[in-house]
């Protein structure tokens, strides 16, 4: 069969050796997804819906001034930062521990790794539901367990308590995404060459020394990628707080994304867009700086 004839499309467009026709659909979609919303957000951040006139009017810098004087915004920024860094640290340390434990060819460990993949495909909103019933004030399993062990008082609750609520939310994230770290780190551990470890054993190095001097440096690229992707998703998280606390009690568990969404539903479209734009700019700067300094390559 003459390949050239039978597979030429009209005008030979896609047969082109230039990359433009191949990339055109992708570029179009990315412009729609990334460029237009970005500029539309900037536009919205200088406008606000005025109920009296039932219209979106130009308000200058009002939204940005409001942003930097709004206590709830600063609170939600603090919650987002705390949530991101705490979860990242816990998931990384816990994930590394579990990865070292189950990095083994012995029978059974393949099944253990398979079980750990399961949490990753649960819709986060449903993962939130699972913990909503387990952390319920009256008949929740976790609440009951903590009370039985005397860690919280008989009248205490988790999700209605300003100091505990955020940890109640973080627990879901740690449960669902620690396996993400585990699987990536196990893959990293499995790809390491065995010679340096054998010679270190012969030299009589202690396990902790081997870990610090050999394993960690050799894994640094894998760790950087895992931290980057997890960090992005932690910063963007909204499902868990939406389901578990809706930002409460009070405003103690508002994250930036949830607060932006909540302002949006209160028809403060311009202000909601301003908050989400702020959140977007922060993650773009921090994410790209991380890629640059950690030398992550795609």
């Amino acid at each position, binding site marked *: 069969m003459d390949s050239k004839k039978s597979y030429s499309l009209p005008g030979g467009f896609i047969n082109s*050796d*230039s990359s433009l026709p*191949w990339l055109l659909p992708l570029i179009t979609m990315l412009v729609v*997804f990334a460029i237009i*919303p970005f500029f539309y957000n900037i536009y919205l951040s200088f406008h606000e819906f005025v109920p009296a006139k039932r219209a979106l009017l130009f308000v200058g810098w009002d939204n940005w001034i409001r942003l930097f004087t709004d206590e709830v915004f600063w609170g939600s920024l603090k919650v987002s930062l705390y949530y991101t860094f705490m979860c990242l640290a816990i998931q990384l340390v816990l994930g590394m521990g579990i990865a070292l434990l189950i990095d*083994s060819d012995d029978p059974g460990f393949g099944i253990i790794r398979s079980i750990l993949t399961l*949490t990753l495909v649960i819709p986060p909103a449903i993962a939130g*539901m699972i913990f909503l019933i387990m952390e319920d004030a009256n008949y929740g399993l976790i609440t009951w367990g903590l009370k039985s062990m005397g860690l919280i008082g008989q009248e205490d609750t988790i999700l209605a308590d300003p100091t505990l609520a955020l940890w109640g939310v973080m627990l879901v994230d740690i449960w669902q995404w620690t396996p993400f770290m585990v699987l990536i780190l196990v893959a990293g551990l499995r790809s390491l060459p065995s010679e340096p470890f054998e010679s270190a054993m012969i030299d009589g190095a202690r396990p902790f020394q081997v870990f610090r001097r050999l394993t960690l440096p050799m894994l640094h690229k894998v760790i950087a*990628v895992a931290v980057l992707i997890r960090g992005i998703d932690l910063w963007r998280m909204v499902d868990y707080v939406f389901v578990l606390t809706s930002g409460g009690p009070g405003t103690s568990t508002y994250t930036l994304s949830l607060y932006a969404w909540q302002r949006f539903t209160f028809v403060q479209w311009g202000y*909601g867009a301003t908050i989400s734009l702020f959140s977007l700019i922060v993650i773009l700067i921090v994410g790209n700086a991380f890629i640059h300094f950690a030398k992550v390559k795609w």
Partner: protein
Amino acid sequence: MNKVLKQVLGWFTAAVFFFPIYFWITVSIKKDKDIFALPPKLFNFDISLEAYEEVFGISRFLYVEDMGAVRPGGGDFYMMPNLVDSIIIALGSTGLAMLISILGAYSLSRIPIRGQQHFMGWILSTRMMPPVAVAIPMFFIYKNIGLMDTHLGIIIIHALMNLPLAVLLMKSFFDDIPKDIDEAALLDGASRFYVFWRLIVPLAIGGIAATAVLCFIFSWTEFIFVLILTQTGLKTIPVVSTSFVTSTGTAWDNMAALGTAAIIPAFIFILLVQRHLVRGLTLGSVKQ
């Protein structure tokens, strides 16, 4: 470390992470009195499939007595239409994302462009955008062009959401295939599209399947776009499952039945592509 101790700790870890899933499944088949029992009944409860019947109308001939009137099983908690919505959206957005990303990724892998690193960086940057920051402007754009509250609108936004993953992952799979194959075929006079469609795509089929499964799962589990960009026309499972929480109480058994039904297909899919899972989770950057 001792081998037996390692086994014990390994299985203990797996049990801890599996426990909430097990508990959720038991809620879906428990009766109310056992759901609220303390200490929790983990094994010794009566099994009832009523919640599934209400949610999926498995038994269409089951009639329940409701305020004196007899109506078909199902009622307020009948979620079959939402399951169909979820399937349409996940399949449609996966198809769209794969079509665009395979073409783009092949080109990025084989025909380098000027500023390729910047272009890749741009793709990665779109992966960082918080969904809220995209959904709020999209709400107004969709309102104007009539895509609000439609399947097509959600299919497009989910495809867009998955594009960075799909492109970067597919590029890494194409990069694994030696470029000599393309070059030899091109020298023999084959066209670019023939090389792509007849030689490279069949070789990358495992990677394509893995990428498609991940796109499907991320669309299946997505929450905030559907929440903001739909009103009454459609609701996917993650969003509709929040509707079981009402002011008069929460229908835990129904919610768990829907949740269980939603996660089991995802479990099967993910176990099928486990070999490529880590590569997928790291957008093609860490290979197993």
